[in-house]
């Protein structure tokens, strides 16, 4: 029997100003994080609307993580404060519907935190891997 064969597909929405640069830094510093993390660059974490997250799950994501600037550091002053409220409400709702709460996460990663980015992704991938495939928010038509 093979162990750890299952590799979850993770969609990471990264804000252009902090987390995307953080991901870059992780790469420059050769810090490893799973290849199955697909990064989508957004101008600000608050650009991520709940529909994006649900659509990511529909198209086969097993976990969705949103990374933005640390509160107070938003390039647009307050974008990530809105993200914080919106995602708190959404994640709570997903949990209420019985969808594993571990599949969604928000992390604040600055441009200088390459190591944190890699560690976050590794940890998130591990958590999602332990949950297995996303069955509760899957759209069978999108499975190959």
């Amino acid at each position, binding site marked *: 029997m093979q162990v750890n064969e299952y590799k979850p597909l993770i969609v990471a929405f990264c804000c252009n100003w902090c987390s995307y640069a953080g991901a870059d830094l992780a790469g420059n510093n050769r810090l490893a994080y799973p290849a199955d993390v697909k990064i989508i660059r957004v101008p600000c974490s608050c650009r991520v609307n*709940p*529909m994006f997250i*649900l*659509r990511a*799950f*529909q198209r086969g994501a097993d976990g969705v993580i949103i990374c933005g600037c640390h*509160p*107070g550091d938003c390039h647009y002053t*307050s974008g990530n*404060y*809105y993200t*914080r*409220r*919106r*995602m*708190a*409400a*959404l*994640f*709570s*709702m*997903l*949990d*209420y*519907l*019985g*969808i*594993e*709460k571990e599949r969604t*996460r*928000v992390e604040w990663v600055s441009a200088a935190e390459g190591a944190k980015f890699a560690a976050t992704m590794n940890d998130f991938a591990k958590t999602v891997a332990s949950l297995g495939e996303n069955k*509760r*928010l*899957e*759209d*069978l*038509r999108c499975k190959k």
Partner: protein
Amino acid sequence: MQKITRDQLVSKASELLSNGTVCCVLGWGMGEFDYDVTPTVFNTVEELNNGFVFNDFCGANFSKYLVSKAAKCDGKILVLLKPCDTYSFNQLLTEHRFDREKVYVVGIPCEGMADVSKVKAICGEGILAISSNGDNINVTTLYDENPIVINAADVLAERCVNCKSKKHVAYDELLGDEGEVIESNRFDEVARLEAMSADERFAFWQNELSRCIRCNACRDACPACTCEKCVFDNPNSGVENKSPANSFEEKLFHIIRAYHVAGRCTDCGECSRVCPQNIPLHLLNRKFIKDINEFYGDYQAGEEVGMRAPLVNYTTEDLEPGEVFDRGADNA
């Protein structure tokens, strides 16, 4: 069961029509049976006398109609609002959906409306007449010789069982006494679901939402859903769909619908009232309300005009999305 009678309402409306305060009246029109009342615009006193009805089945929330009807009137439109409707009224005003100057609000007291499906659950099909008699309701059916007497409280609509307020938060004129905001147990059912395991919750919602036929009645009746074009009707949105092809689309629609009105939903209960499949949609909205109250402090949408909704607001000390669940664990 209602404290105010049809005749009182007709005479008030006729008075306002006759003295030129208003040019038409948005009220309840008589149906085929005692329970199928239709929101109707009355233009004359004669129309009011012939077709106006007020009974325990006048549940429809008129506030949303003002968005389309107020603009069409030359003068003011008279609208009869129950306490819960006035919250929606304020919320719509906050969102600048109609002109306050075009509307004349008469607040009417409400003792809770009845749900005909609950009546049918007790009396069966074949209801010929329903009349109110104090705390009781008399139901005449095809199959029973004598009217069946049932306790009005037993057939109270779900949203009225957990009525949150008897207070009118907006009116030009009030019939009856000023009511009070009341302590309700409206979050009990949400808390009961929260206390379940994730698997149980998933099974519960899967079962409920699987009945959805995507008729959009919940959306179209909702006073908070007033977008000119809904994302689910927009062929370019990528999520446009006219029927739930699978359980994902059922969830997608209902999560987004509830999310979009989060912080703006006044908990009027129209979504659950109109659902042909009796899906307890208000439990989704109430979850958001409960969360918002717990996370960011008590907030009642529509309490005043001009309030800033919690999801378009923030403080620097808000809790982190990850902490949502820690709190949940503490509560449990």
